[in-house]
């Protein structure tokens, strides 16, 4: 049992492959066929391609902002691949890869960051909650959904995610306290990418790691190498089994590095060094998985061709997002209430009168 064998109180870290893709913890290697491993890498390649394109679209002024997921690919692939259609995803805002595997489209992601609320209306994704900008608040919703599916005796598991900075919010602790108390089928992930915008983890907490916080709430916790796809996969697999057995919630600290900026508005050179970035780049999740596949000789695809194919797909989705019909006045009002008050209707009518006047002045 991973959750027993890697005690966060002793600051142990769970890892299966090293930076060269060599298996160092064979007994924990998840039982995956070659095809699944190749598929995992392809997912990660798609995430990274889409992510880099998103940053570039923003730089071209075609999107307002975007929080890059660069470096988080192993966490996203491993959790997404352990989720079923009926399982719930309660994201923060740096989970694009997981969202894609749950059926959210890049078009929707783009729409959101172009400033259109339609980007949170996931047409083909089952049980995905809109992203949470209000830091940490989503953890409580995940706990509530966990209670709900348990109460309704549904075979559904809830996955939620927070950043390292988010663990400082009261909502984080309150959600986990309830989770322990209620024994809800929720898998809580902390994507510890070392920085809350400019503030490093060591300035957020005096705890030896973040997984250790689980101890106080009476739920299992483990610190995992978040750039190790196999370690992340094995951890999620075990967490899913734990939840399915009705044992309750777990907390997973996935140790990674935010290779990009917090969002495209942020400049990391202000608060971190090139040396530190170089050190972390050695742990890159994609390079490690690729090296593993190379050792095994199972990767036979042409990566450049794949990237070109993915780029065409992402371009198409971006174009669709850009070609959405213009935002209408009705879009401001129509979803404010299920039962719209008359007063709102009047405000809209008054504004239309103003628009008529404005037209007449042209």
């Amino acid at each position, binding site marked *: 049992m991973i959750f027993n064998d890697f005690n966060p109180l002793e600051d142990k870290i769970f890892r299966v492959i090293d930076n060269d893709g060599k298996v160092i913890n064979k007994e924990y290697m998840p039982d995956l066929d070659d095809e699944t491993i190749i598929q995992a890498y392809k997912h990660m390649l798609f995430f990274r391609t889409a992510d880099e394109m998103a940053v570039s679209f923003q730089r071209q002024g075609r999107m*307002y*902002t975007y929080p890059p997921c660069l470096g988080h690919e192993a966490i996203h692939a491993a959790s997404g691949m352990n989720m079923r259609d009926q399982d719930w995803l309660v994201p923060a805002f740096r989970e694009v890869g997981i969202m894609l595997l749950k059926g959210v489209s890049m078009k929707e992601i783009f729409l*959101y960051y*172009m*400033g*259109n*609320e339609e980007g949170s209306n996931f047409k083909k994704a089952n049980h995905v909650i809109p992203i949470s*900008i*209000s*830091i*940490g*608040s989503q953890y409580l919703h995940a706990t509530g959904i966990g209670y709900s599916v348990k109460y309704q005796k549904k075979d559904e598991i809830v996955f939620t995610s927070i950043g390292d*900075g*988010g663990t*400082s*919010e*009261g*909502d984080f602790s309150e959600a986990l306290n309830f989770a322990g108390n209620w024994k809800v089928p929720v898998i809580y992930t902390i994507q510890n990418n070392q920085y*809350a*915008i*400019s*503030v490093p983890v060591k*300035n*957020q*907490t005096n705890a030896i790691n973040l997984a250790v916080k689980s101890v106080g709430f009476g739920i299992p916790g483990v610190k995992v190498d978040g750039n190790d796809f196999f370690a992340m996969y094995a951890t999620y697999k075990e967490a899913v089994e734990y939840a399915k057995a009705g044992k309750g919630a777990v907390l997973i600290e996935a140790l990674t590095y935010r290779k990009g900026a917090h969002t495209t*508005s*942020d400049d990391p050179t*202000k*608060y971190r060094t090139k040396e530190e970035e170089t050190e972390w780049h050695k742990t890159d999740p994609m390079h490690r998985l690729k090296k593993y596949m190379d050792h095994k000789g199972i990767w036979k695809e042409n990566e450049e061709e794949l990237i070109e194919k993915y780029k065409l797909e992402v371009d198409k989705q971006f174009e669709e997002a850009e070609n959405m019909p*213009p*935002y209408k*006045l009705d*879009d*401001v*009002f129509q979803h*404010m209430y299920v039962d719209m*008050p008359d*007063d*709102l209707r009047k*405000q*809209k009518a008054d*504004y239309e009168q*103003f628009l008529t*006047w*404005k037209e007449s*002045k042209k």
Partner: protein
Amino acid sequence: MEGEQKMSVMTIVQAINNALDIKLAEDKTVVMYGEDAGLEGGVFRVTEGLQKKHGVERVFDAPIAESAIVGTALGMAMSGLRPVVELQFDGFSYPAFNQIISNVSRMNNRSRGMYKAPMVIRFPYGGGINALEHHSESPEALYSHIPGLKVVVPSTPHDAKGLMIAAIESEDPVIFMEPKRIYRAIKQEVSDDKFSIPIGKAKVLTEGTDVTVVAFGAMIRECQKALVMAKEAGISVELIDLRTIYPLDKETIVNSIKKTGKIVIVAEAPTSFSVGGELMAIANEEAFLYLEAPPKRVMGFDTIVPLAKGEPLYMISPDRIFYEIERTVKF
């Protein structure tokens, strides 16, 4: 001393930084913290350079926990310090709401004056910057509705500096809302010396006779554009900048209404139960017999501020202000 003042051209960001710098330098009880507000100087760089100058013990980064930021500041304020805390955006002041409404605003009253709360909670507010959710809101009515707080909103670099110094020196807790949309849009000559502007005093920016327009913060600039249109239409507008939302400078407003007989209120927050509503109540209670037209609010819809694509429909534009000014004058 007068006449020898050294002036510098400042933005609102620089003016607030300068005010904080002056108070940190002259008063060792002043401390300043918030998310990313230390080393990086805040996401808008309002506190840039202050940690380097005044030390990490006095200017520092806080963990992401708004309730803790405000709650600990109250602890400091009750025990001899004068904390100035930064909340990163308007929408992130809500996690601190419990501390603000349940403790910060009440401590003086609760302790019968034994424990005061001389602290400043500052955050950027308002829309028009194409931001994500929770980054575009104008919660002045929420905070003005809480007994025990003072709420300040500057509209110029000069006012931002003078009001910030007054806020830090205030014995009562002050909510200091900074118009992020014009953080760097306006440059103005501001005195390098220490000066303060009294909290609770509005300012008549333009004198006029046909209609009173009341606004504050980032809407002042939009009103000034509307005033150009009004002038072309032959309408004489008296423009008042509230500068402080609570306590409201009723005298200045009422005197103006007595002169013009008409009032138009401009703000970006939702219309219902707003500062606009309060101003209309004052117009009715204190200048009823002088009113020649119904008071008018030009304010946001009772909706969430839309994301960037829809935001232009929500934001109050100069032509919409002019449209309502003209309708009110022609009533």
